[in-house]
C-alpha cells in the first residue's frame, strides 16, 4: 500500500498488532538441540535469499542515480553501460534550464508544508472535540466527517473541478491546499487524533480545569503537547501524500511555473514526446534522494507511523 492508500475506513479499536511497536524484535527464542552447523548453513541461505529479494528494491534507485550522470549518447547505448563512463553533471544543469524546476520544487515543498500544518490543526481540534467534549449532535457530526473515508478522490474530481473552475481558482495552488486540509484526505488524520485523545487521561484535564483553564487552554497547553506521537504519524503521512499528489495537480494546474514535482517530472520530453531520459532521471533523483535521506534517518518513526495509520485507517 502506498501512503495514498492510507485513507481507509475506521475501526472501533486499533488492532492488537498495531499497538505493539512494529518491527521491534522479541529476544531470540532458544532453539532446541539442532546441529549448529546445519542451522548456520540454513541461516546463511536465508540471508542470501534476502539479498536476492532486495535487488528489485535497490536496483531501480541505483540505476536511476547512475544513469542520471550519463551523457545523452551514452544513455542510448545498447547494451547499457553499468557505470557512467564519463560522468557528467550536464543533465542536472538541463533540469533547471528546460523547466523552472527550482520554482516547481518550492511549489511542492510549500504546498506540502501548508497542507501538513493545516491538517494537523484541523484534525487535532476536531479529533479532540469528538473524543473529549460532550456536546449535542457530536456523533452525527462525527459521522458526517467520517464519510470522507469512504470516498476515493477520483470519485469527486469532476464536481471539485467544476467548483474550483467556478471560483476562478484553476491554475492556482488553492485547491491543492484547501481541499486536502478540509476535505476527504484529512479525515484519516482526524480519526487518528480522535483515537489518540480517547485514551488520554481525564485527570489531567480536570487538573487544568481546576487551574481555571478554558477548554481551548486545556487543549492547547495540556492535550496537544502530549499528542506528539500521533501528530508525528499524521505529519509524516500527510506530507508524503501531498508531496506525491498527481491526479489533482494535472487536473487543476496548467502553467509550468505552477506545477508540482510529480507533474513536472513527466515534462522532460523531446519534440516527439519521448522522454529525455538522463534529464528526467536527474530530476527524479533530485526529487527522491532528500525524501530517502530523511526516511533513513527517521526510519523507525516512518515505518511505525505509516504502518500504524495504515492499519487503523
Amino acid at each position, binding site marked *: 500500500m502506498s*501512503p495514498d492508500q492510507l485513507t481507509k475506513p475506521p475501526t472501533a479499536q486499533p*488492532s492488537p498488532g498495531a499497538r505493539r511497536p512494529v518491527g521491534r524484535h522479541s529476544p531470540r527464542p532458544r532453539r532446541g538441540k539442532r546441529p549448529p552447523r546445519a542451522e548456520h548453513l540454513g541461516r546463511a541461505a536465508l540471508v542470501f535469499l534476502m539479498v536476492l529479494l532486495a535487488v528489485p528494491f535497490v*536496483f531501480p534507485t541505483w540505476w536511476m542515480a547512475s544513469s542520471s550522470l550519463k551523457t545523452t549518447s551514452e544513455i542510448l547505448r545498447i547494451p547499457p553501460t553499468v557505470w557512467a563512463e564519463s560522468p557528467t553533471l550536464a543533465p542536472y544543469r538541463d533540469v533547471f534550464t528546460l523547466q523552472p524546476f527550482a520554482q516547481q520544487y518550492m511549489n511542492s515543498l510549500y504546498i506540502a508544508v501548508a497542507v501538513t500544518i493545516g491538517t494537523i490543526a484541523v484534525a487535532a481540534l476536531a479529533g479532540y472535540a469528538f473524543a473529549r467534549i460532550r*456536546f449535542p449532535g457530536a456523533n452525527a457530526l462525527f459521522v458526517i466527517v467520517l464519510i470522507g473515508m469512504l470516498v476515493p478522490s477520483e470519485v469527486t474530481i469532476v464536481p471539485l473541478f467544476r467548483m474550483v473552475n467556478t471560483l476562478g481558482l484553476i491554475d492556482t495552488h488553492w485547491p491543492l491546499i484547501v481541499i486536502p486540509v478540509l476535505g476527504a484526505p484529512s479525515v484519516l488524520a482526524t480519526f487518528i487524533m480522535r483515537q489518540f485523545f480517547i485514551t488520554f487521561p481525564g485527570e489531567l484535564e480536570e487538573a487544568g480545569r481546576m487551574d481555571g483553564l478554558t477548554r481551548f487552554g486545556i487543549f492547547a497547553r495540556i492535550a496537544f503537547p502530549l499528542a506528539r506521537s500521533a501528530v508525528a504519524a499524521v505529519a509524516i503521512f500527510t506530507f508524503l501524500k501531498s508531496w506525491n499528489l498527481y491526479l489533482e495537480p494535472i*487536473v487543476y494546474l496548467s502553467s509550468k511555473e505552477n506545477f508540482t514535482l510529480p507533474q513536472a517530472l513527466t515534462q522532460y520530453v523531446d519534440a516527439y514526446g519521448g522522454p529525455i531520459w538522463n534529464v528526467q532521471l536527474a530530476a527524479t533523483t533530485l*526529487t527522491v534522494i532528500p525524501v530517502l535521506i530523511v526516511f533513513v534517518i527517521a526510519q523507525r518513526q516512518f*515505518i511505525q507511523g505509516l504502518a500504524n495509520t495504515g492499519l487503523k485507517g
Partner: protein
Amino acid sequence: MTSVPTLPARRRTMRWRDRDALYGYLFSAPAVLGSLAFVIAPLIAVVWYSLHEWNVLANTFTFIGGENYTRMLTDAALHDSLWASLWFSLGVLVLNMTLALALAVLLNQHLPGTTLFRVLFFSPVVVSLVAWTIVWGFLLQADNGVNAFLAALGVTGPNWLRGSVTAMIAVVVVQVFKNVGLNMVLFLAALQGVPEDIGEAARLDGAGAWRRFTSITLPMISPTMLLVGILTLVGSLETFALIDVLTDGGPGTSTTVLVFYLYRQAFEFNQFGYASAIAVLLFVIVLALTLLQWQTRKKWVFHES
C-alpha cells in the same frame, strides 16, 4: 440551608458545560464544514451530474435520466476497463500478499542485517509513485535495465510495455514493489503477535517448520491477512498515476483501468456526465469492499475479546 452552598457550584458546572458544548462545535467546525463542502456536496453533485448529458466543450447540460447508466451496459470500452481493473487488482492482490508475507517471515527469523533489509524493502513506500514509475519506465525499455540484466543471464526479455499481457504484468509488478513494504510491516507485526510457546509445543510434538507455518502461524494471522487484502484491493482500484505515466492505458486499452477510463472520459473527451456515472460506479465498488472490511473487522474484534 444545606442546598444554598451547592447552588452556585452547580450553576458554575452548568455554565462550564454550556460553554464546553460551544467549544465542541467550534473545534469540530472546520472538519464538519469542510466535509459538507468538499465531500458530501461533491458526492451529491456527482450523482446529479451522472443523470445529465454534459459536454464541457460543446457547453451542453441536459437531463437524460438513467441514459448514462444504460450506456454503460453497452460500452465495450468500459467493459474492457472493468476487465483490466479486475486483472490488475487480482494480480496486485496475489503478488503483494505473497511477497509481503514471504518478506515478513524472512524478517522475523532474527537474521543478521534484519533492520537494514526492513529499511530497504520499505523504502519505495516513501518514494513518490511518479518518480518510482519513471525509473521503472526507463528500466522496462526494450534494451535497457531489466532486459539488459536478463541478457546478462542469457535470457531474452520481451518488450514489456509493447505487449498487452506483458504491460499488465509490468504495471502489477511496479505497483507491488512500490507498496509491498507496508504490507510486509503489517504482517511482521502480526507474526510477532503469535505466541511462541504454541509453535514450540508443536515442534516438540514433531511438527516441521512448514507444518507449523500452515497450521499455526497462518490461521493466527489470518484476520490481518483479510484486512490487509481488502486494503490492498481498494488501493489498487484507486491507482491512477502509475498507469498514466507508465503505459498511458496501453498498448491499446489493455491497461486502461476504471479510474484511468474515468479520467479519460472527463478530461480528455470532456464527457463530464458520463464520467460522473463512472465515478458513481467506482464509488459503489469501493463502498462495497469497505463495508465488507468493516464487517470482517467487527467479527475479528469480537473474536479477540
